[in-house]
């Protein structure tokens, strides 16, 4: 196994919360540029995995290697600085600020050597933020307070903020949850469009199997803390265990 090909490797990850096993010997290798979706019912361990990759949780055993560097014990800030960004199931945005200001904060956090005598609203910063807003088709919402914005726009802004720093890996935690079913596809299209053109590795958690099939080139299925299938959509969605434990249930899911 040559490690150099993989941008992210999870090796032998175990994690339990009391009696609940959230990760059971998880081994995942991800190549640069892959678009990977994580599927599984609630509590299967997808979000726990994401939280461990981004440093919010520490695995009990095992290690997480990013670009040949062990990041298992780093905190979320250091991991973000190394090049792994994430979005959240419930958008974590700064409510009293405008969308534009939210992105300004995101941009500010990605810069070094701040001056205390230079306004954050400089011309260079403004231009870059306008460009991001454009990529995510958010222009019309730029100067509105984000607490008033509709759910889908909030989701997009949350992702846009994660992307400002130009990460190498982007983790999206249920990008379409909390959004009406007719809005899901336009939302995913906007996200896909915004992420295209960069050799970005994307890992996302998703419950909608149509979206999973359409927007990812690899699927990893979780069940009660273990990976039960890993491969392209045909292999994984055709897998009998996946049918029994994952997709079978999602049809019962009420949207």
């Amino acid at each position, binding site marked *: 196994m040559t490690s150099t090909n993989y941008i992210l490797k999870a090796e032998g990850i175990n994690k339990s919360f009391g009696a609940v096993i959230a990760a059971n010997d998880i081994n995942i290798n991800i190549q640069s540029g892959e678009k990977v979706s994580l599927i599984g019912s609630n509590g299967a361990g997808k979000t726990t995995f994401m939280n461990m990759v981004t440093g*919010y949780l520490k695995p009990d055993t095992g290690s997480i290697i990013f670009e040949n560097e062990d990041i298992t014990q780093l905190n979320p800030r250091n991991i973000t600085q190394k090049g792994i960004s994430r979005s959240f199931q*419930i958008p*974590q945005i700064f409510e009293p600020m405008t969308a534009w200001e939210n992105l300004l904060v995101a941009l500010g956090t990605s810069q070094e050597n701040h001056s205390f005598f230079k306004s954050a609203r400089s011309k260079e910063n403004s231009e870059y933020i306008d460009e991001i807003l454009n990529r995510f088709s958010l222009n019309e919402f730029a100067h509105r307070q984000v607490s008033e914005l509709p759910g889908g726009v909030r989701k997009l802004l949350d992702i846009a903020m994660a992307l400002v720093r130009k990460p190498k890996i982007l983790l999206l935690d249920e990008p379409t949850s909390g959004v009406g079913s007719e809005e899901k596809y336009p939302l995913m299209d906007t996200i896909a469009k915004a992420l295209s053109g960069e050799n970005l590795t994307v890992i996302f958690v998703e419950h909608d199997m149509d979206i999973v099939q359409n927007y990812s080139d690899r699927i990893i299925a979780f069940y009660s803390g273990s990976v039960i299938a890993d491969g392209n959509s045909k292999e994984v969605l055709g897998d009998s265990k996946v049918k029994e434990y994952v997709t079978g249930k999602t049809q019962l899911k009420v949207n």
Partner: protein
Amino acid sequence: MFDEILTIFLDGAIYASWLFIVALGLTFVFGVLKILNIAHGGIYALGAYSTATLVPIFYSLGMPEELVVLAMLFSALAVAIVITPIMERVILRRFYGQDEVLIVLVTYAIYLVLEDVQKIIWGMKSFYVSEPREILGAVEMGSLYYVGYDLALIGLAIFCGLALWLSLNKTKSGKIVLAVIHNPEISGCMGVNINKVYLAAFFVGAFFAALAGSFTAPLISVQVGISVAVVIESFAVVIIGGLGSIPGAVIGALIIGMARAACVHKLPEAEIFIMYLCMAGMLIFRPKGLFQGAQARKI
């Protein structure tokens, strides 16, 4: 040597008992209403003043001396009955659910008001009501003499703590209060009248503050400014024990009581700030206090 240790221990226990009764009310109110009540010290002072007023009246009516405790209890009750609706219903109610620090500031404002209310009612005079302190005589322990009343305070503190703990854990209404502490929203949905629980909890807290004042009155000269030190001392206790915890208040009061008694006898220079040191030290090493688990943050 042994006498010295015993003295420190008993002095500490008496001081801790007094502290505990004040802190018990403070921590209980915080537990239920999530309010760190600076005005608690003001209620304490009102309890002391009302006892200083009622006890002489009690004697002048020619009542039996031994029943003076009833007058003291009554004065504490009266203070709680008067102060609770004004503070909880009229003022604090407006701020539920808001930032904890903002509510602290509101109670600070109420504290300021209570300070002057005391001056308006009782003036700048000092009151002495040492008579109740004599009803239990003195207790001889080897070469040491202790006033029986002082030692009885230890019993009162134990009684107050147990009474509150048992009524919370063993009675139906106590369990409702525990449910509200745990999750007010869900309790509200289940049909619990939250407003009533808050009012009752505040009443209990105010009663303990006033009770501590009432029973301290015979030990001190009741005068302007007695509340100011109580505020910070009881804060220190609940911070050390963990906000909202009754066992925490026991431990916190014992730590401060013993540390202070030890300082009085061995290192008088440190007496004034030993409790603040205890509080700062506890916050540094265990910020949530001894009896409060870490709260998980969800994302």
